[in-house]
């Protein structure tokens, strides 16, 4: 039996009837058409499905849609539209920090969360922060470089603003 779910996704109020067993990932992808959230393992190991739930990265494959009742969800589509990670996206592009693009959503979510918590991480800290994001294509170095450059740019801008 479906239950009614009220939540906020990418700034929009959403009311949908969902089966209690529907994962947040399936709800976002299939019911809302937000296919930028990807499914790679459906057991919380690969990081392709990361979304921000009340500002915190969560595996949308491990969260039930009904658990998002009353929450605020931000997916890659929303993050893209707010422009909050535009510099990070630009550095990923410039450094070619993605190939097939399937992990990219999760990488951006992890990077954005890392830089909020630790604005100037070391390379080792960046690599640690990505320890739940699997990428088969790049070998990770370009991703680390892109995050590193973003962090240093942001820090320089913050410094200049003082």
């Amino acid at each position, binding site marked *: 039996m479906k239950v009614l779910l009220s939540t906020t996704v990418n700034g929009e109020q959403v009311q949908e009837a969902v*089966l209690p*067993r529907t994962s947040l990932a399936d709800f976002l*992808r*299939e019911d809302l058409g*937000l*296919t*930028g*959230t*990807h*499914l*790679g*393992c*459906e*057991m919380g*190991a*690969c990081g*392709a499905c990361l979304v921000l739930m009340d500002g915190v990265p969560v595996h949308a494959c491990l969260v039930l849609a009904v658990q998002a009742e009353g929450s605020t969800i931000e*997916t*890659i*589509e929303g*993050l*893209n539209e707010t422009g909050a990670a535009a510099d990070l*996206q630009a550095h*990923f*592009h*410039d450094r*070619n920090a*993605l*190939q*097939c*693009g*399937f*992990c*990219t*959503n999760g990488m*951006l979510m992890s990077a954005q969360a890392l830089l909020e918590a630790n604005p100037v991480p070391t*390379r*080792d800290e*960046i*690599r*640690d922060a*990505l*320890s*739940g*994001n*699997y*990428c*088969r*294509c*790049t*070998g*990770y*170095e*370009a*991703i*680390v470089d892109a995050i590193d450059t973003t962090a240093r740019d942001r820090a320089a801008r913050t410094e200049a603003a003082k």
Partner: protein
Amino acid sequence: MTLHIGQSQRRENARRHLAGRGRFVSDLALPRMLHAVFVRSPMAKGRLVEIDTSEAEQSPGVVRILTAAELNARCKPWVGTLDHFAGMQSPPMSILAEEEVLWTGQPVAMIIAKSRAEAEDAADLVMVDIEDSEPVTDGAAALQDGAPLANSGARDNLCYEALLETPAVNEAFADAAHVVEASFTFGRHTAVTLEPRAVIADFDPSSGALTVHHGTQTPYQFQDVYARHFGLPEGKVRVIAPDVGGSFGMKLHVYNEEMGAVAASMILERPVRYVADRLESFLSDIHARDHIVKGRMALDAEGKILAMDVDDLAPVGAVSAYPRTSAAEGNQVIRLMGAPYNMPDYRGRLQVAFQNKVQTSQYRAVGHPIACAVTEALVERAAEVTGLDPFEIRARNLIADDAYPHVSATGYQFEKLSHQASLAKLREMMDPDALRADQARLREQGIYRGFGIASFVEITNPGAAFYGVGGARISAQDGAVVRMTPSGDIHCAISVTEQGQGTETIIAQVVADQLGVSPERVSVTTGDTATTPSGGATWACRGAGIGGETALRAGRKLRERILTLAGALLQADPATLRLEDGAVVDVATGEARITLEEIGRVATYRPDTLPDGVDHSLTVAHHFAPSGYPFDFTNGIQGSLVEVDVETGIVRILKHWVVEDCGRIINPLLVDEQIRGGVVQGLGPAFFEECQYDADGQLTNGSLADYLVPMACEMPDIEIAHIETPTEDTILGAKGVGEAGTAAAGAAAMNAVNDALRPFGARLTQTPMTPLRILDALDAARKQRTDP
């Protein structure tokens, strides 16, 4: 004029992935689409007694349950052999198991339901009665006399065998000053693309047309396969490969599930979607490697390699993969042995065995990592017995850079390689003297570091010698259609495909340079049999070398067409004109005479103003197949620095170096990222990745929680340098680079680990080099020291 070939052009198509706007098959939903789930054999081997679907049929959302009788009848069985592999056998394969199950996970029934979840619910209710029998899991046991058959359709468990031998190989070993030998075990692993295999088959009975949205590298190969196996005219089959979430060779094989989706769509006359979940990926994607190799190397007193003698046993599952076979990897293993070196004599023997596991087949760097690891580990032992330094022994044996063309002892023809220059460059980058000093200093503190190096060649730009000569309908050529739009922009539709490596970007660069425009003005279409010309697509490193050359020649054809038209408009000899910065320019003065936009306008809207007989068609097509050498080999060398914790067996990979020569570099940024990604795909199976089976043929670690893949925190920074030796077989001069990283990374790492363990006399000869195996090696060495 700025040339774009050689520039680090950024990938335009990466932007939509960064915005969450990728278009993967797994994202696609079609009207009236149904979802497929397979009921799979829980046993590795057995007789299928009964399948009871009655309860499952009543499950909510179920539309149909298809069993072998109905589904297999729709599809002509496939046989994974090639004619040029003499004596090779493989029993025919159909979508669902009929009487016998051959591996754990083999599909036995197909559930079609309104949602994936409902199909999974129903799958749990299907009762499958299998009378199980003892599976054949071990490759060596499979080939012993009296071994039970892994597949009752086969004569015996020997799928294929081959022997390469030079006449004087026995004398070479008899006369050798030194012979080193070792046995190696290379684990079975798998591709683990982040997007699993995905297909939506959409048969339209009103037109008889089949459209398949298929996450694959090779749309044309599948157009041919679907047409022939489902009895459809080729022109009625369209295969569309949109964004593909990683492939690496894994998504170009024919799988039971994809064929099942097509058959089901034809039966139900509705779109049928199958997307593997991760557990199914581990059970049904091709696995790779799995070799047991015995190797010997003969050397003279100066440390010169005289010969190698290797024996490769490769168990490949219960059938050979289709259409590229499961024997190609072993075939390349025995042909790539010793390839970088002056090695006059050789014997290589290959045995490919059937067993009750999922099939193995081509995956990135087919055969290369095995041949490289064996050769380079033996060279390392040779260095020890001759007292030579790892760089010195290679300097003495690598083919001299001025000694080309060269034919290897296994028959490969090398046009021109740069092993010695690569070795010198690597030495400069690694500074081995400083590394040795560090190593000695740290050993006193109980820290064990080691470094290792590994030379390699890579097979790229394959012509028809790869598959075509063996009767496989796998295109050796590629095609491009290049046109100028009415506004003077350029469009290129090409048969090579994109999986994120940057194919579309480099094609735009190549075309742009032929037509004097910026790459931003060139749009590229790939991955759709309805909108691109026919061709082999992207595999075995042919996107840049063959696809690039195709685009170059097509671009030049259009250039001639534009200049002829411009000559007519300007009343000038076309030979006095060239294209530059979006205009036709007078060669003598450099003056811009007419823009492409103006030519496009006249040709499209006012052809009536052109002189009579002037051809105003601004679309050209060109197909290109490699000629000259059967393959364009590339070469390079890699170095690895590791630290082994001898208490825990845990290895930290500290640094990795690569020197690579892929000929003309079209895009340095993309080349380096191909190498980095490839290195990590080589380090994964060297340290972590292994499909573990128990004696009953059950895969025991088939999930991403249990199967270890390389993650960011374990991987090193990778320093890369290049030598550029263009091939003269083409105008462009580019060779492939996609497999170079994977080819030698594991070999360098194994030499590095063994260098670190040298003070203990311990040595690893098995991959992955897990902490447990390292501790076992240390333990064995300790026992040998105390109890010799």
